[in-house]
């Protein structure tokens, strides 16, 4: 069972209280972008083995979107952080495979 702590209300929320929002920090490409960039924005995802940054919404709770850093191999949660950033905080970043 995946349990994430909502960074807004501090509630330790079970996975079933949350709505998943897919990979985080995907660069947005809209009108004027090349076809390749738009395709990457819409469809291409990293799907890494290891540390993964994700978007989640505290749907059955305070309703806020937030980010989570999670290891896809161990299912361990590295941390959660607010949605108003474009990249993960330094303390939740680590070299791949470490």
């Amino acid at each position, binding site marked *: 069972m995946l349990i994430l702590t909502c960074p807004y209300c501090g509630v330790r929320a079970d996975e079933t209280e949350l709505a998943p929002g897919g990979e985080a920090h995907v660069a947005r490409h809209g009108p004027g972008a090349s076809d390749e960039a738009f395709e990457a924005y819409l469809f291409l995802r990293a799907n890494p083995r290891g540390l993964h940054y994700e978007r989640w919404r505290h749907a059955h*709770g305070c309703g806020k979107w937030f980010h989570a850093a999670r290891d896809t191999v161990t299912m361990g949660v590295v941390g959660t952080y607010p949605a108003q950033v474009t990249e993960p905080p330094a303390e939740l970043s680590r070299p791949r495979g470490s």
Partner: protein
Amino acid sequence: MFDAATTKETTRFEGLVTVEDTGLAGMITIRGARSEIGGAMSDTVGLPVPETLRVTTDGRRSLAWMSPDELMLFCGHEEAADLAARLAEATARAHALILDMSDARTLFTLTGAEASLREVLAKLTPADMRTQAFPRGMIRRTRLAQVSGAIWWADDGSLRVMCFRSVADYVRGLLCHAAHPASWVGHFRD
């Protein structure tokens, strides 16, 4: 025009705990930054603004935390419209939303031994119902089986359960079923 009612049937179920329909209550949604509207709102309602995951009450009205920018005011059903209008006037200069939502949700009151109350709710929600995670005075918005709900402790030690009125019959069934005398587990201790 239909008369306002909370559920189709009057609920009173006695089992591990007693499940009752709390009846009609005024419920006013207050949305806005605490720093902008907290003072004016607190003066109008006569209650302090609750901390995160807390409820403040004077026995007559209660102010519950709902999200970082949302509060729910519980008051008498008949005074809700007037109170909402006064709140809207008091916060008119701020970026805020005040709305009488009394018909949107239903309240249930659960009374009984604290351990039994925790046990009945633990059957329905993934939220941690242990004392250290859900102490008296706390409100927890969570999931009750398949729908959203909120649970909090009233001053008298009873438990309040709130859900949308559209799923009130479903939640009433859930609560009565979870409180059935034959479903005792005994995981929580007084």
